C-alpha cells in the first residue's frame, strides 16, 4: 500500500474542500482498501466521509424513498419500508458479499464498487481500466466472469454490484453534491459504459460526493424480486442475476422493469424484455418469450459463452417467480 495522508472532515463543506484538493473519498472502504493493498488504487490523501450526516433512509412527500449515501448495506436491507415496498432491493443486498462486509459497505460506495476482473486487480497485467492504453488482458485471457453486454474492444469487465442492478430496474436517481452545487442523474446515466475510455466508470466530477440515492415512486401494487445465479450458494459475485419489478392490475402487466447483473459492464436494463411484457397477461409462454430477448446484442467471449443462455434462463425464472403463473 502506498503511503497516504488521512483526514476526517466533520461536515460536508470541509469534505468538499478536501475533495476539491484531490483527496479521495472513503466510505465503507471495502473496495478501496482492498485495491489500495493491491496498489491498484494509490490515493495521496484519503478523505474519510463516514462522519457526514448522510445515513438516513426516509420516505419523501411523493412517496419516493431517499437513501443516504452512507447508509450501510445491512441497514438498508433490513429497513422496514425497503423490505415491504422493494423486496428486490433487500434481496439484492442480502445476496451480496457477507454479513460482515454488508455491515461496513455503504450504498453510495456499493454503486461505485470496482470490477472484480482479475487483470484489473493485478498490476502486472495489462488493463485499460487501470491504465488507459495498456491493453486488455481479459479479451484473450480468462474471461468466464466477464461481461457479454456493453463491452468494447478496450474493456469487458463486469460491474460487480447486485444492488445497482435492483436500483437500475427501479429508475433510481443519484444525487450529487460538488463544488458547483447539487445535481442529479439516473443511475443508468451515472454509470458509464467502457467504450474507449474504460477508466471513466461514472459521471462523478472532481470533488463531487454522492449524497443520496432516490427510488422514485412506483405505481402500486408492485411486485419485485432478485435472483442471483452463482457457483457457490453464498459469498460469491453473480454469474448472472435478474431484478424484476412488475405492476400488474386486472390480470395485465401495466409496468415492467427488468435489469440484469453479472453480464454487463454496467447494470443492464433489459428494455426489450420490458417491451414484451407491458400490456400482456402473465403466462409461462410470455415469460419465456420475453426472456428470449434478454441477451439481445450479447458479445460472448471464449469462457463466458454460457452466459447468453444462462441470462435468458435467469430472467425467465425470475419473471415466473415474481409474476407468477395464473
Amino acid at each position, binding site marked *: 500500500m502506498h503511503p497516504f495522508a488521512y483526514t476526517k472532515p466533520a461536515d460536508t463543506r470541509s469534505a468538499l474542500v478536501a475533495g476539491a484538493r484531490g483527496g479521495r473519498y472513503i466510505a465503507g472502504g471495502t473496495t478501496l482498501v482492498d485495491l489500495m493493498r493491491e496498489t491498484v488504487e494509490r490515493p495521496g490523501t484519503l478523505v474519510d466521509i463516514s462522519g457526514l450526516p448522510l445515513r438516513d433512509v426516509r420516505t419523501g412527500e411523493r412517496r419516493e424513498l431517499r437513501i443516504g449515501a452512507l447508509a450501510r448495506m445491512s441497514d438498508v436491507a433490513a429497513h422496514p419500508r425497503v423490505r415491504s415496498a422493494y423486496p428486490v432491493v433487500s434481496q439484492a443486498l442480502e445476496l451480496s458479499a457477507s454479513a460482515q462486509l454488508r455491515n461496513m459497505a455503504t450504498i453510495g460506495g456499493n454503486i461505485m464498487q470496482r470490477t472484480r476482473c482479475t487483470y484489473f486487480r493485478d498490476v502486472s497485467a495489462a488493463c485499460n481500466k487501470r491504465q488507459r492504453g495498456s491493453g486488455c488482458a481479459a479479451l484473450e485471457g480468462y474471461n468466464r466472469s466477464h461481461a457479454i453486454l456493453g463491452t468494447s474492444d478496450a474493456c469487458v469487465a463486469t460491474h460487480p454490484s447486485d444492488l445497482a442492478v435492483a436500483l437500475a430496474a427501479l429508475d433510481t436517481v443519484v444525487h450529487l453534491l460538488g463544488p458547483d452545487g447539487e445535481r442529479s442523474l439516473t443511475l443508468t446515466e451515472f454509470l458509464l459504459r467502457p467504450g474507449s475510455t474504460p477508466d471513466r466508470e461514472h459521471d462523478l466530477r472532481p470533488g463531487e460526493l454522492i449524497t443520496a440515492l432516490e427510488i422514485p415512486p412506483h405505481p402500486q401494487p408492485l411486485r419485485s424480486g432478485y435472483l442471483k445465479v452463482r457457483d457457490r450458494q453464498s459469498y460469491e459475485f453473480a454469474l448472472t442475476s435478474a431484478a424484476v419489478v412488475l405492476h400488474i392490475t386486472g390480470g395485465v402487466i401495466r409496468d415492467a422493469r427488468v435489469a440484469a447483473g453479472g453480464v454487463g459492464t454496467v447494470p443492464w436494463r433489459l428494455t426489450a424484455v420490458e417491451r414484451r411484457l407491458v400490456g400482456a397477461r402473465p403466462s409461462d409462454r410470455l415469460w419465456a418469450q420475453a426472456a428470449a430477448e434478454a441477451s439481445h446484442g450479447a458479445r460472448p467471449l471464449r469462457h463466458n459463452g*454460457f452466459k447468453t443462455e444462462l441470462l435468458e434462463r435467469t430472467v425467465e425464472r425470475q419473471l415466473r417467480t415474481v409474476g407468477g403463473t395464473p
Partner: protein
Amino acid sequence: MTRQTRPAAGTPLSRVDGRLKVTGQAAYAAEHDAHGAVRGVAHGVIVTSTVGRGRITGIDTRAAAGQRGVLKVISHVNAPELPYRPWRGVPDPARGERLRVFQDDRVRFFGQPVAVVVAETLEIAWHAASLVRVSYDAGRPATDLASPAGEPNESENYTRGNVDQALRQAHVRLDRTYRLQREHHNPMETHATIARWDGDRLTVWDKTQIVLNTRAGLAADFGIPEASVRVISPFVGGAFGSALRCWPHVTIAALAAREVRRPVKVALTRKQMYTGTGFRPVTEYKITLGADQRGRLTATVHDIRAETSTYEDYREGLGDVGRMTHATPNVRLTYRTVPLDINTPTWMRGPGPATAAYAIESAMDELAYELGMDPIELRMRNEPDRDPSTGVPFSTRRLRECFRVGSRTVGWDRRNPRPRTNRDGNWLIGTGVAVATYHTARAAAQALARLHADGTATVQCGTSDMGPGTYTSMTQVAADAIGLQVPRVRFQLGDSSMPPSPPHGGSMTMASVGSAVQDTCDKLRRQAIALAVQDPRSPLHGTTPDDVTVANGRLHLRDNPARGETYQQLLARNNRTYLEARGGYTPGDEVERFSTHAYGAVFAQVAVDEHLGLVRVRQVHGVYDAGRIINPKLADSQAIGGMVGGIGMALLEHTITDPRDGRIVNANMADYLVPTNADIPNVSAIYLGGDDRTADPIGVKGLGEVVIVGVAPAIANAVFHATGRRVRDLPITIESLLGG
C-alpha cells in the same frame, strides 16, 4: 497388559486444546513474537516473478531500498551463495531438485520468489516490495497438460494378467476419460516463518507438518549441522499437505534473518500461497473396463497423465486404487507426468486415491448402467478376498458392511435407478455412491514420557496437529497406558528437539505416533511398577509386576485393589522428581504380509436445477471402516471435514492458469471457491469401529485421507442419476450442465 477401568481412548472427549483455540491463545507460526518467544522481529515481504519462464535481466531496488525503515532488499544479485547440501526430504519427489532461492537468474514459473524486502514494519515492507522493478527476458511458458509440452517423464508401469485378451472377450467394454483440475489446499492460516540466528544456531517458528523435515532442509540449505537448527510449530492452522515440505519462503526467512542480523518474519499472502507451496495436480485419467455378463470385472486399463514442474517429478499414489480396490484378474496401469513451467505439485488430502477414485468410481457407475445393475451390487460382485495386486490377505476389509450400513441409513432400497425420475419443484434429485480406500501408512516414531512427583505426566513427540486432534488423542492413549486421568496428562508436540516423528500426513500419525506413545507410556508404567515391587517400603513390595495394575494414578494389585499406593507416594518416598521412559514404534513385516487399508462407502444426494445449471448437495453420508476410533467426537469432525473437502472438489475447486504467461488468475479466496457454510446442509459419518491389531499396536487404520476419497465420484454419480447427464470433468460447473 494392564488397563484403566474406564479407558480414555474410545470416549468422545472434547479437545484438550479447545480452550486455547476458542480464546485465541493458541500460537500459530506468525504469532510467536506477539506471544513473547522472539523479540525484535523485522518483516520480510517476498517479490515474485511476473513472467512464467525466462531470465531476470535486471532488478532495480533503489526506490525500495531508499524507503525509510527498509533494512535490506535481497535478490540473486546480492544474495550469498548458499551451500544447498544434497538432501531430499521425506516428502520430496524422488527425482529432481528443490527450488533454490535467489541463486540464479532463471524464472521457472509465474510467481517464483525473485527478491525479499526486509523492513521495520509490515506496511513499509509491503510498500517497498511494490517498488522493486524487475525486468525479464521472458518466453511463453508451457502450462497446459494437453499441450505438446515436450517429452513426458519416464512412466510408471504395472501389469498383471493378459489385459488385451480379456478385453477382447469382455461382455461389456467401457472406455472413458476423466479430468480433474488443479486444486489448492488453501488452509485458513497462510504459511509463515519466523527465523532467528544466534551465531551459527538457527531457530525457526514455522507452519509445518513435520518439524524434522524443516530442520533437515534448513540445515542442508545453509550447510550447518541439523543439531544447530531448531524448528518450533505447536499449532498449525490447517495444511492438508501444504506444510509437508520445506518451501522456499522458509529458507528465505532464514536467509533474510542472517543478512539483516535480526529475526525476520515472512508470511505469505493468500495470493503467494498459490505459487509458494504446492497443489493437487491436474490429472487426466483414461480408463477402460471390461466385464462379464454378471458384472465381474475381467480387465481394467488405467492410463494416467498428471502435471509436474520442470525441476521436480512429483508423483502420488495414483495407481493404488486401480491395482487393489476391485477384484480384477487383468490390469494394466501407466502413470506419466508431464513437466510444465509451473511450481511443483504436492500432497493434498487423499493424494492419489482422491483423484483415481473419481475416475474409477465414476466408470464403475457407468458400467452399472451399461449392465443394468445396481451400482452397489456391482461393487459387491467385485469384492476381492485377498489384495488382488499382491495376493496377500487383508488385515481387515469391511467394505460390504460399510455398504450394508449405509444403504440402510439412507434408504438405498427405495431408490429408482432410472435417471430423471425424482423431481422436487425446479430440482431434479439424484443419488450416487462410491467406494473409498486409502492405504494405512505406518512409519517409525519415538516418544518420551515423564511421570512427575505430583502425579502428572508429560509425554512428547515431535509430531504435529494440523486439526485432527493429535494433542487430544495422544493424551487419551497416554492416559490409558500410564493409568492416569486425562487432565493429569499433557502431550506436547511440534518441536524438533522432541523425539522424532514421521510426517503428520498420509493418515499415519495415529498409527505411528499413537503406537509409539503407547509403547513409551507402557514402559513408564512398568518402570513405576518395578520400582514399587522392589521397594521394601511399598505396600506392593514383593508382588509380581504382572499382577499390578494402575488406575487413576494409583498402583494396586489387580486382585486386591486395597493393596497399593499412588504414583505420588511412590516417587516421594524414593526421592524421585520424575520417572522417565523412552519408547517407540517401528512397523514390522505385517506391512508386507497383510494388505491394510481404510475403507468407506460414500452416499450422496444432490439437487440439480437443470434450467440454471445449479448443483446443490443435499446430503453426503459416509460409512467408514478405519479400525479403532480413539476419539469418536474428533473422528466425526474429521470425517465431515473430509467430505466437505470432497464437495469442494466435486463442485467448486479449480485453480485457473492463464496459458499466455502462467499467471494464476484466481489466486484468492473470492475466486478460488471452497464451500461456504451455506453449501453444506447435511453431512454425516458413521464409523464401524472395530480394532485392527494386525495393522498396528493400537488398532487404527488412519482416517484423515479416506474421508475425502470417493466423495467427488459419489456426487458426480448422483448428478447423473438426477439428470441423465454424465460430466467427466471436475469441478462440475454450471456451464457443464447447461445446454441440451
